[in-house]
């Protein structure tokens, strides 16, 4: 395929570039005329929202890194200096700090959307798996970012989480020493966490690129879970979904701004405003809220290695989800039993989050174990079995039929192009 691209753009400069490097044609195809199912609900905003959250995190992070000092003696003070003496430093830091929470909120809803509407099913398995890779990278990045202010929870969180690897037989202790760069969490640990916290976001960007590229091969799923059958089922991405995503972005920013400006420390832990002290262990060591469900699973297993394996397993199971679900029907709307089970899973994960925030005593242990059991039962047993036994409701003939009430004529303002990819 060597040869100049035949550009359709009129502007001479755009045309000159596009002929040699058809980025404008690509953008036009992928974000302009890209045929998108016409029946998205607002759950389909969350991919775009995640993209916005990611960009905000990277931009604020770059400016924070200009003023932050990754040294155990200076880190805490350098963060306070950002808060007090750097122009609008408090704004940049609060946007970054709460941005992590907003990013996870958005991504968790995005994942729920995928689960509920069966977006992980063929042909979108790889798309889903790339998403799970992004989730894992996000968790690592967030964890290392939380260590940087070098408060009490930073230090002890880092100690607890890195120590998890000591559960592995024989090599465990060596892995932990290797991770720390020494024999306890100390300056070398902080240095490498800072380095990796700066690196991983760009790895995330690269995987997001692959995630989006895969999406543009398969096309988007939709609330009905049936493939578009022709141009009457789709709309060009622009302006229909650019404007619909914009509405979502505005609402997202309102919630975000409310947190940043009026409750910037609401989701944080007060202990992290105490400088790290290896001699004093906080009464309770808890991770940030978005990691609590995994923490609950970890502590629900009486055996340390078992807990660690279950915790990693809770994410790894998502990789094989496309093959665990045996039902050919995607959307939960047409799967009455699955629908109940997946909603129960949402409640289950919220309960796990609550359990993770409490000391594992009394009823919390029982609740934690029950919730952990349901989590794995859902993926490993219920999904394969229900897919075989359940009788799905009748699927509609096409997307346009329920929307237009009978596959009516094309609307005047919607010049849907013939399908290029889906």
């Amino acid at each position: 395929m060597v040869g100049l691209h035949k550009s359709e753009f009129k502007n001479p400069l755009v045309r000159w570039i596009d002929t040699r490097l058809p980025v404008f044609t690509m953008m036009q195809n992928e974000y302009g005329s890209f045929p998108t199912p016409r029946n998205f609900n607002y759950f389909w905003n969350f991919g775009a929202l995640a993209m916005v959250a990611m960009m905000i995190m990277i931009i604020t992070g770059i400016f924070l890194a200009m003023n932050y000092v990754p040294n155990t003696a200076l880190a805490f003070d350098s963060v306070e200096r950002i808060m007090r003496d750097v122009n609008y430093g408090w704004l940049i830091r609060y946007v970054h700090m709460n941005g992590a929470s907003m990013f996870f909120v958005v991504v968790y809803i995005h994942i729920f959307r995928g689960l509920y509407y069966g977006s992980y099913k063929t042909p979108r398995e790889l798309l889903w798996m790339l998403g799970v890779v992004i989730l894992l990278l996000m968790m690592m990045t967030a964890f290392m970012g939380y260590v940087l202010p070098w408060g009490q929870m930073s230090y002890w969180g880092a100690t607890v989480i890195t120590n998890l690897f000591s559960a592995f037989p024989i090599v465990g202790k060596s892995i932990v020493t290797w991770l720390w760069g020494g024999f306890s969490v100390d300056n070398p640990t902080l240095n490498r966490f800072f380095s990796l916290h700066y690196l991983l976001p760009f790895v995330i960007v690269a995987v997001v690129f692959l995630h989006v590229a895969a999406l543009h091969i398969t096309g988007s799923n939709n609330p009905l879970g049936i493939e578009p059958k022709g141009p009457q089922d789709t709309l060009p991405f622009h302006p229909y979904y650019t404007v619909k995503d914009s509405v979502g972005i505005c609402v997202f920013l309102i919630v975000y701004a409310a947190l940043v400006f009026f409750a910037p420390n609401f989701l944080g832990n007060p202990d992290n405003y105490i400088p790290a002290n290896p001699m004093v262990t906080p009464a309770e060591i808890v991770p940030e809220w978005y990691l609590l469900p995994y923490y609950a699973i970890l502590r629900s297993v009486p055996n340390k290695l078992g807990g660690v394996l279950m915790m990693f397993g809770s994410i790894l199971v998502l990789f094989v989800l496309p093959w665990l679900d045996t039902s050919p029907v995607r959307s939960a709307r047409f799967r009455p039993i699955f629908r109940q089970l997946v909603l129960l899973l949402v409640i289950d994960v919220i309960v796990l989050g609550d359990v993770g925030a409490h000391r594992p005593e009394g009823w919390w242990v029982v609740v934690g174990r029950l919730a952990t059991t349901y989590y794995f039962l859902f993926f490993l047993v219920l999904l394969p079995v229900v897919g075989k036994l359940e009788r799905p409701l009748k699927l509609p003939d096409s997307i346009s039929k329920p929307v237009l009430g009978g596959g009516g004529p094309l609307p005047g303002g919607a010049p849907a192009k013939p399908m290029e990819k889906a």
Partner: protein
Amino acid sequence: MRRIPLARLILGAALGGLLATTAARAADDAKLPKVEWSFSGPFGTYDLASAQRGFLIYQQVCSNCHSMNQLYYRNLEGIGLTEDQIKAIAASVQVPGGVDDNGQPIQRPGRPADHFRAPFANDQAARAANGGALPPDQSVLELAREGGADYLYALMVGYSDPPADMKMQPGMMYNKYFPGHQIAMPQPLQDGSVQYTDGTKPSLEQEAKDVVTFLAWAAEPEMVERKQMGVKIILFLLLLTGLTYAVKRKLWSDVH
């Protein structure tokens, strides 16, 4: 269709979880007294007169044991002190001034650009002077405690004789609100601990309120600017959301 119950279910579960967490936390310790703070709420600002009285208490009481390392004397402009007042306050303390021509360390009067002077040279000295307990740095103390300003206020007014059945460790005081109820810090404030120059009656409650207002300001000196900016930004975003939604409705009107 059947999407409303779904949303309700999830919202309900989330709220339920949140309430359970809050309830569990509250049950741990004595309920904190509710104080009306000038700085609470989305339009709250610091009561500067109160913060200045609080600074007086910090100078005369707290700073004998507690450091406030993140603050500079120049920051006191934020509670409404004038440049001359700040110069005088800074000059009233001696700070390390580098070395003289013979290489001997010297002391000089403080300047507005200096950090608040710490009462002890290091943590060990602080512990030695306080029966082994380390008085925490007060720069961000208001953010570093569960309950924030309410907790600090409660701690100031929570001293009493221990219950008859409680065995106290030597040198420890009883405080209703301190975790474990045994605190190494003797009751710092009493009625009339300081003389206010503005005629305010220095009751224990008034002093506690003033010093906590000062500590809250010290922890988040940007709060007023932050909230004022937040109001503007949220109003702007509401307007933008309305406009965007109107555009969306118009664009989609021929699709539905």
